[in-house]
C-alpha cells in the first residue's frame, strides 16, 4: 500500500471544507430566514457533490494505492492531516456526496422544528462522514469517526419520534462503547507496535505478534460490528431508525452503517490479516445467520420502518459475507453492495417518509390500495423493492451475485477445510434472496395493492416534483449499476487486488509457519503459489 498520486488541486479538502463552511454560514443567518437555510444547505451539499465529481474524474482506475493525497502537519504529537482516496473508499465518498443533497432536499417539508440546526447538523455530518472515509491518519480518522456520532445523536434526539431519547441514548452509548475500545487499540498499536507515526501506512507495517493481533482485531472488529450492525449487535438499529426523522434514517442506513463494513476492509483486515483469517469463520457464520435472521424478523414487522431496518441487517450480512469470503469478486461485490444498500435502503426510507408526511403513520396496516391514486409513488416503490430483492437488471443483483459467486468459488476451489462450511454458508445466504422477496413483496402487497380500506387513503397526493427528483435520481443509479456496473467495479479493481494480495500473502505466510507474520515481500515461490491459488481462469 502506497501513496500513488499527490493532489495538485486539493479536491478532497474542498469536499470536506464546503459542508463545514456551509454549516458556518447557516449559523450566521438568523432563524427567521428558513428558506435561506434550506437553499444554502442544498447549495453547499450540491457544491460538495460537484467537487467530489472532480475527485471521481481525476481518479486513476489503474492505481491500487491512495490517490489525490494531501498531507499537512496537524497536531503537535505527530498526528497529521493526511487524506486520500483509493478503490476501497471512492465509491463510498461518492455515495456520501450524492445522498446528502438528496436527503437535504427530502427534508424540506418534513422538518419544521428548528430547521436551522437541522441543516447545520446535516452538513456537519457530511464532513464527518467524508472525513472518516478519506482520513489516512489514525487520529484524524478517529476524530471524524466520533464526530459522526454527535450530529446523528442530535438528529434522533431532537427531530425524532416519540421514543427519541431512548433511541438516541441507546444509539450513542452502544456505538460509543465500541469505538472507545477501538481508541485503546489505536493507542496500543502506536505505542507497542513500533509505528513511526499515526499514519495509516505506518500502522499497516506495525509489528505486532499474533496474540496481540487477536485481541486488537477483536477490539476494532467489535467497534465495526456494532456499526454495521452485525448480528447479534443490531438491536440499536431498529430503534434508531424508527425514531429518527426520514433524513436521519436515510443517512444512517445509506452511509453511516457502511462505516462499519468500510472499517473492516480499511483497518481490521489489513492491520491484522492473520487474526482476520482466524476470525473469518465466526464472522462469516454471523453474517449468514444475520441474513436469514434479519429477513425473518423483517417479515414479522408491522411497522414499515422497522421492516426496512431489519432488512438492513440482512443486506449488510451479505456485505460482510462478501468481504470475509476474501475473493476478488466477493470483496468487489461487497463494496458495490454497500453502495447498493445505500441507494435502495436510502430510497426505501425516503418512500416511507413520503407516506409518513401524508398519513403520519408507519403502520403497514394503515395503508392498502394506495397504488390506485399514487401511481408514480407505487412505481418507485416497486422499482426500489426489486433493487432490494436483487432482481437482475437492478443494482442489487450484481452485488449479491458477485458476493455469492466469490463465496462459492472460495468454498469449491479454495482451501479444503472451508469446503463444507463454505457451501453451507453460501446456500444459507442464498435463501436470503427468497426470504427477501417474501417480506418485501408482502409489504408491497399490503401497502400498494388490494382495495382501499381506510378512507384517509382515498385522496392521497402522489409524489410532487421535489420528491420525484430525489427518488428519480436514485432510480437512475439502480439501473445504471444493474446494467453497466463496470463504471463502478472498474474503480475498485486495483485496490481490491492489492488488498487481497497482501492479505493472502500474510495469511499464507502465517499458515506456512513463517517465523514472523510477514512484513517482508513474499518470495517468488510463495508468489507463484498464491497466483495459482487465486486462479487465472476467466469465467464467462
Amino acid at each position, binding site marked *: 500500500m502506497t501513496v500513488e498520486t499527490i493532489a495538485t488541486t486539493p479536491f478532497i479538502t474542498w469536499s470536506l471544507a464546503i459542508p463545514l463552511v456551509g454549516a458556518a454560514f447557516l449559523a450566521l443567518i438568523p432563524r427567521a430566514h428558513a428558506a435561506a437555510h434550506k437553499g444554502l444547505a442544498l447549495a453547499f451539499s450540491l457544491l460538495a457533490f460537484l467537487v467530489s465529481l472532480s475527485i471521481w474524474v481525476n481518479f486513476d482506475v489503474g492505481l491500487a494505492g491512495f490517490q489525490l493525497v494531501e498531507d499537512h502537519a496537524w497536531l503537535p504529537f505527530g498526528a497529521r492531516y493526511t487524506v486520500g482516496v483509493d478503490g476501497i473508499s471512492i465509491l463510498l465518498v461518492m455515495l456520501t456526496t450524492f445522498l446528502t443533497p438528496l436527503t437535504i432536499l427530502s427534508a424540506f417539508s418534513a422538518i419544521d422544528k428548528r430547521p436551522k440546526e437541522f441543516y447545520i447538523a446535516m452538513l456537519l455530518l457530511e464532513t464527518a462522514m467524508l472525513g472518516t472515509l478519506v482520513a489516512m491518519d489514525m487520529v484524524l480518522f478517529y476524530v471524524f469517526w466520533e464526530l459522526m456520532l454527535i450530529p446523528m*445523536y442530535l438528529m434522533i434526539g431532537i427531530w425524532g419520534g416519540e421514543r427519541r431519547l431512548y433511541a438516541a441514548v441507546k444509539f*450513542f*452509548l*452502544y456505538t*460509543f462503547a465500541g469505538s*472507545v475500545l477501538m481508541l*485503546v487499540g489505536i*493507542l496500543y498499536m502506536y*505505542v507497542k507496535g513500533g509505528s513511526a507515526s499515526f499514519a495509516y501506512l505506518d500502522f499497516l507495517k506495525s509489528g505486532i505478534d499474533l496474540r496481540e493481533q487477536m485481541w486488537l482485531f477483536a477490539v476494532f472488529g467489535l467497534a465495526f460490528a456494532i456499526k454495521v450492525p452485525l448480528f*447479534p449487535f*443490531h*438491536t*440499536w438499529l431498529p430503534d434508531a431508525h424508527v425514531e429518527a426523522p426520514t433524513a436521519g434514517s436515510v443517512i444512517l442506513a445509506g452511509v453511516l452503517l457502511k462505516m462499519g463494513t468500510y472499517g473492516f476492509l480499511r483497518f481490521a483486515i489489513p492491520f491484522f490479516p492473520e487474526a482476520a483469517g482466524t476470525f473469518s469463520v465466526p464472522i462469516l457464520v454471523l453474517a449468514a445467520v444475520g441474513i436469514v*435472521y434479519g429477513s*425473518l*424478523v423483517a*417479515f*414479522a*414487522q408491522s411497522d414499515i420502518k422497522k421492516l426496512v431496518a431489519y432488512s438492513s441487517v440482512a443486506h449488510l450480512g451479505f456485505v460482510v459475507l462478501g468481504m470475509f469470503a476474501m*475473493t*476478488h*469478486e466477493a470483496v468487489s*461485490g461487497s463494496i458495490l453492495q454497500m453502495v447498493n444498500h445505500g441507494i435502495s435502503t436510502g430510497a426505501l426510507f425516503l418512500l416511507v417518509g413520503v407516506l409518513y408526511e401524508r398519513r403520519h403513520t408507519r403502520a403497514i396496516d394503515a395503508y392498502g*390500495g394506495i*397504488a*390506485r391514486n399514487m401511481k408514480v409513488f407505487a412505481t418507485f416503490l416497486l422499482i426500489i423493492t426489486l433493487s432490494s430483492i436483487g*432482481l*437482475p437488471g437492478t443494482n442489487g443483483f450484481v452485488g449479491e*451475485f*458477485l458476493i*455469492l*459467486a466469490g463465496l*462459492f*468459488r472460495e*468454498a*469449491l*476451489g479454495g482451501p479444503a477445510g472451508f469446503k463444507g462450511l463454505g457451501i453451507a454458508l*453460501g*446456500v444459507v445466504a*442464498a435463501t436470503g*434472496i*427468497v426470504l427477501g422477496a*417474501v417480506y418485501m*413483496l*408482502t409489504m408491497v*402487497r399490503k401497502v400498494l*395493492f*388490494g*382495495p*382501499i380500506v381506510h378512507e384517509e387513503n382515498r385522496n392521497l397526493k402522489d409524489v410532487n416534483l421535489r420528491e420525484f427528483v430525489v427518488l428519480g435520481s436514485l432510480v437512475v443509479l439502480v439501473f445504471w449499476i444493474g*446494467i*453497466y456496473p*463496470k463504471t463502478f*467495479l*472498474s474503480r475498485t*479493481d486495483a485496490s481490491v487486488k492489492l488488498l487481497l494480495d497482501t492479505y493472502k500473502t500474510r495469511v499464507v505466510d502465517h499458515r506456512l509457519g513463517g517465523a514472523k507474520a510477514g512484513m517482508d515481500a513474499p518470495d517468488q515461490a510463495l508468489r507463484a503459489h498464491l497466483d495459482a491459488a487465486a486462479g487465472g*481462469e*476467466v*469465467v*464467462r
Partner: protein
Amino acid sequence: MIKETTIQSLLYLIVFAPLAGAILNGLFPRMLSRRAVSVIGVGLPFVSFGATLLALWGFLGLRAANPEFPFVTAELFQWIVSGPIHVDFALYLDPLSLVMTLIVTGIGSLIHLYSVGYMHDDASYARYFSHLNLFLFSMLLLVLGRSLLLLFVGWEGVGLCSYLLIGFWFDDMAKAVAGKKAFLVNRIGDFGFLIALFFLVFHLGGTLDIPDLREVVANPTSIFRTDTAMVTLVTLMLFVGATGKSAQIPLYVWLPDAMAGPTPVSALIHAATMVTAGVYMIARLNFLFVLSPVTMAIVATVGAATAIFAASIGLVQNDIKKVLAYSTVSQLGYMVLAVGVGAFGAGVFHLMTHAFFKACLFLGAGSVIHAMAGEQDIQKMGGLRRKMPITHATFLVSTLAIAGVPLLSGFFSKDEILFKVLALQPAAGPVVPGLNGLWFAMGIGAALMTALYMFRLYFLTFSGELRSHDAHPHESPATMTIPLIVLAVGAAVAGYIGLPHPRLNVLEHWLHPVFADGAAALVNTGSHALEYGLMGVSTVVAFLGIGLAWAMYRGPWREVPGRLHASLGGMYRTLWNKYYVDEAYDAVIVRPLIAGSRWIHRWIDAALIDGIGVNGPARVLAFVGGAARRLACGDVQAYAAALAIGLAILVIFVL
C-alpha cells in the same frame, strides 16, 4: 442474401424494440393517446417479429452455404467483470433460439393485437401494454442470451412481468395475492438455478457461456464425464428452476392462480411462452443433462406425473380458465417428459404446437368471457356455437388439436413424444428397467383425460342451450377474431413441419446441430412399425376421450357425471380441491414461516438479544449506579465523561 453483421443488427432490433415500447408506454402514459399507445404497444412487437423473419431468412442463407453453420453472436457490452468473472451482454442466435424467437415474437404479436380489443375499456391501458412489452423483452433475453447469467436475467424478468400482470387489477386482493404467489414460488426455483450455476462453474470448471460450455463438456477428458454425481446435482438444481418456471410438481401451484391476470396474459405468458422456459432451458443444455441419466429419469418422471396429475384435476373444474390452466400444466408435463427421455426435438415441437393451440384456446376463452360479461363458469354457459361462430370454430380446431385428433398439430407432436418415450434409452442402459413403459402408460392416460376434459369444456361451453339468462353473448371485434383465426390455422397445420418421417421432419433437421451432442448419449431402439402402430393407439385414445365426453355431456350418459359425483364423493372432492396441495403447503410452509418469524422477533430479538443482552447490562448499571445518581445527572455528557475517565485509566494501565 443477408450478411452475418446484418443478422447481428436484427438481433438488437428484435430484443430492444419491445423494450422501447415498454419504456415509452411506461413513462408517458398520460401524454399518449389510446391510439398512440396501441400503435407503440402492438407495432413494436410486430417490428420484432418482422426482424425475426428477416433473421430467419438470413440464417437460412448461412445454413445453405454451410450446413453446419453454428450460430450468430451479437456482443453489445461487458456486463459483469470482476476477478475471474466475465459476463458479456451478448445475444446468441442458433437454430433453437431462432425457433423460440419466432414463437415468442409471432404469437406474442398476435396476442398484443388481440389485447387492443380485449383491454379496450381498461383504465390502465398504457400500463398493460408497457408490461406486456416488457415481458416480450425479458422473454427474448431469456431465449437469446448467450450467457446462462443473461438467460437468468430474462428468467427472472419474465417472472417479474408475470407478477405485474397477474396482479394487473391490483384493487382485487385475490389477484394481488396470486401475483405475489407466482413470484415467490418462482423465486424458490430461481434459488436452485442460481446455486446450480455456482456449482457448474466453480466445482465442475464449467462456464456460464452456453456455446463455450458445450465445448468444455464435449471434451471426453473433462471432469463432466467423470464426476457424474456432481453433474447430477447441478442438473437437478437447474431442474428445480425449471419446475418453478414450467409449473411442474412440486412448484406448479402458482400457475392455476395466475389465471387472475387478464386472459391475453394467460395466453401469452402462462400458456405459450414463459412457462415453456424450463423446457427450453433443458433443451438448451441438452448436452449437459444427458450426462446424468439419473437426472434425466427424474425429469421424465416428474413430467409424466405432472401430465397425468394436472389432467385429472382438469376433469372436474368449472372455471373455463382453470380448466385451461391445468391443461397447460399437464401439457408442460408432456414437454418435460419429452426432454427427460432425451427427445429434445419432440419437446420443442410440442412446445411450438402447444403455443398455437393453447394460445388460441385461451384467447377463445377470453372472447367467451368478454361475450359473457366476465362470467367464467362453464356450467352457466352453453350454446355459444351460434352466437360466436368464429370463436367457436377456432376453439373447436384447437380443441381437436390438443385432444390429439389425427392430422392436426397436437397429434403429431404428442405422438412423437409418446413414441420417443418408448424408443429412447440412455446409451448406458436404463436407470430403472421398465420406467419407459410406466412413463408411456402415464402419457397415454393423460392423453385420454386431455381429450375428455377438453371436450367436456367444449360441449358445456358451445353446444346445447345457454344456461345463464343474464348474458347476451356476441361475437368479438376483428382485432380479437383475426388473431384467433391465425392461431387456429397454426394449430391445424403447425404439425406438418415435424412429420413422422426421417426426411419430412423439417424441424428435427433444423434443430439437429443443437441436439447432436444430446442425441449421441442416447440410443433409439424404436422402429417405424412401432411409431405408426402407436399412432393408431393414440388415435383410438383420442376418439375414446371425445366419445366419452360426448356421451357424458351431450349424449345418452348425461346422468353419469352426477352419479359419479355422488358415488365417488371423496375422490371427486379431492380432485375438485386439487388434491389439497395448496392447503398442505400452507400448513407446512407458509404458516410455520409466519409463526416462526413472529416467535423469533418476540423471543429471540426483543426478549433475549435486546432485553437481556443489551438492556440487561444497562439496567444492572443503572441499579448499581443508583447510589451515585446524585453524581451523574443521567445525560449523555456524563456518560461520555465517565467513559473518557475509564479510558484514561485503561490507557495508563496498558502503558
